[in-house]
């Protein structure tokens, strides 16, 4: 058949067809040049079945498009997803630490450090002028200011925790939504597979990869690719992998505390961090109030502070029944004497300052890690872009090449037409 003129026409037609498909693929690439989820595609050409001609041998039967290939490195995707989870984990922690730094507002002229100094100075003035009523008032007001500040800190820290809870809940919903979409795509991809088992629905795969990338922001995931192009997705928890495709919002919430990275995990850590500072602040308030009250009561006065022992910083306030401060010099000595705070003998100012050093070191270290993580991730993303990204120059060159191929095949066809014309008209005449 192949060596008939009409057979030759088929060969050229296959060339035209493949060139057309290739132009189509190129056009699709250019159209998606700025779509971040898109991976460039390539039409893979293959030879058509050759034809055996007696006495001649095998003649080529034209060209076919064997596959529309998606150019993507799955291993790179795995790395990017893992590092994204780590980045988002750090980011959530860093944000909370910045909020803590803003709340404590040290070093400044308005922080607790300064309020304490003002308070002790007032005590000293009263100590120098024991009978002076004005200094009694001054001391009580300055002491009240410290209690108020501790209350304010507690409110603000509670606010941060509430904010973290709200964010986490919102992201759990977002993750549940992503999982739903991944499931839908899995179903669509499976259907497409049944339609055409040999070829992959590239654009659906791109969409799903994008969703998996987004899901990795919330939690660390492990993706297993099945032979029919569907995926299984496991969330990595400290108790091992958990199939997340079957989970709804409530299910995700349940595994959230055990996740090993991702923003959901980051919120857990951030919350623990904030609660740790709350607890230290409570211990500070407890130490201060207990020591002052003890001195005052031992000298026959009313307690200076009233507070709830379990949440001292939030509940501390000046005793409304307090009349006069009687243990002035004794209480003033607390400024320089280590007292019992959180089971250790330490001065009040030292305790608070070491809290701030600790906060500074943590915030600094988290920021450094985050910066390194951002760099790492952007290198990986550059590599992915290098492999999967669309280059306009490249596509234009392909376009020229395929257009030329199309022209050339059309030229062959025109030649065959002339040959047929020769046979029909010239030979018959």
């Amino acid at each position, binding site marked *: 058949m192949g060596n008939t003129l009409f057979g030759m026409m088929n060969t050229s037609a296959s060339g035209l067809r493949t060139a057309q498909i290739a132009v189509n693929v190129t056009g699709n690439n250019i159209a998606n040049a700025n779509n971040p989820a898109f991976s460039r595609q390539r039409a893979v050409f293959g030879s058509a079945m050759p034809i055996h001609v007696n006495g001649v041998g095998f003649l080529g039967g034209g060209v076919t498009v064997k596959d529309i290939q998606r150019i993507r490195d799955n291993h790179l995707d795995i790395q990017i997803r893992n590092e994204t989870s780590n980045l988002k984990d750090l980011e959530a922690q860093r944000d909370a630490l910045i909020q803590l730094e803003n709340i404590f507002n040290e070093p400044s002229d308005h*922080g607790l450090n300064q309020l304490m100094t003002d308070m002790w100075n007032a005590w000293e003035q009263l100590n120098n002028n024991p009978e002076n009523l004005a200094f009694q008032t001054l001391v009580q007001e300055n002491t009240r200011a410290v209690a108020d500040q501790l209350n304010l800190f507690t409110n603000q820290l509670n606010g941060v925790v509430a904010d973290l809870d709200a964010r986490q809940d919102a992201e759990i919903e977002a993750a549940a939504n992503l999982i739903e979409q991944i499931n839908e795509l899995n179903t669509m991809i499976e259907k497409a597979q049944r339609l055409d088992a040999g070829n992959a629905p590239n654009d659906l795969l791109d969409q799903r990869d994008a969703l998996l990338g987004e899901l990795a922001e919330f939690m660390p995931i492990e993706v297993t690719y099945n032979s029919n192009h569907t995926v299984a997705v496991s969330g990595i928890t400290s108790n091992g992998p958990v199939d997340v495709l079957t989970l709804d919002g409530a299910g995700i919430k349940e595994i959230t505390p055990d996740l090993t990275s991702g923003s959901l995990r980051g919120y857990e850590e951030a919350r623990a961090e904030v609660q740790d500072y709350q607890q230290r602040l409570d211990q500070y308030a407890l130490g201060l109030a207990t020591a002052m009250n003890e001195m005052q009561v031992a000298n026959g006065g009313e307690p200076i502070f009233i507070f709830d022992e379990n949440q001292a910083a939030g509940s501390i306030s000046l005793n409304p029944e307090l009349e006069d401060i009687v243990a002035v010099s004794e209480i003033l000595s607390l400024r320089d004497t280590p007292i019992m705070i959180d089971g250790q003998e330490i001065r009040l100012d030292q305790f608070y300052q070491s809290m701030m050093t600790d906060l500074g070191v943590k915030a600094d270290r988290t920021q450094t890690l985050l910066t390194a993580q951002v760099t790492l991730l952007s290198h990986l993303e550059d590599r992915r872009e290098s492999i999967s990204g669309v280059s306009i120059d490249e596509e234009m060159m392909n376009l020229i090449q395929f257009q030329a191929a199309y022209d050339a095949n059309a030229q062959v066809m025109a030649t065959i037409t002339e040959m047929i014309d020769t046979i029909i008209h010239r030979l018959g005449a």
Partner: protein
Amino acid sequence: MRITNRMMMNSHQRNLSRNLNRLHRVENQIVTGRLVNKPSDNPVNATRIMGYQNQIARNDQIKRNIEESILFSEMADTTLKQVNDQMQRIKELTMQAANGTESDVSRGIIADEIEELTKAIVQFMNVTNGEQFIFGGSVSNKAPFELVDGQIVYHGNDEITQVSLAPGITIGRNIPGSQLLGAVVVGTDESGNDIVANLFDTLSGLSEAIRAGDDEQLQELMSHLDQHISNISLIRTQVGITHQRLEMSLTSTENINLNLTESLSKIQDVDFAEKSIELAILETTYLATIQIAAQISRPTLLNFLR
């Protein structure tokens, strides 16, 4: 490596944001004038700054304590000098009365004068600093001395207010009035305990003895008066020593605060010259980055086709 247009765009975006971040940080430092605005800027220095701030504010308070105490001691010194002057005058009068040539009338006049001088001494000893009586111990809102029928009544107590000169170091600021009264042993009672006379006992005894012309008694009381005079002198010396110590502490506190302020400044304050240069360099980098960003839509092959 295969480079695509989007890769270049991404990397420019990253660089732009990194440069802006640095610029923001330096600008913030210049605007606030501080190198450390939050603990993570420099965790170690942040704590040192807090410590320095505490110490400086505390020393300021100590300085105020000392200045106030200096005022106290100066006032005490002046008062004691006045008291001493009155006592010297009383001594002269007593000696005049004791030479045995004075008539009853002039002895009466002398006794009257001594009684007036005694009242003046009480008045001097009730001196106030502002509204505070300085010789009442810790009782500062009530005149410490009152003469009732020639007998002195002391309304104060023996408290000495300790003022801190440095953390852990204190000094007694006031002299309790009871010390000014003094105690001269004038005999022993039946059970062998000393009988003592205070300054005003002696003074009222003097005027009585002069009126009565009791020379023997007068001689004895004059020796008591001498003892009271030396008691007051001794207290004046003590006040002088306290005053000197306060002045020294004031100088050293001022010096310490100068040093602390300098140390704080070294780690906290922005060196504007240095930061301005840093800012200029960062601005140049930033400008270059946005210029390149503007050129990033480089022509593609497309521009040369056709």
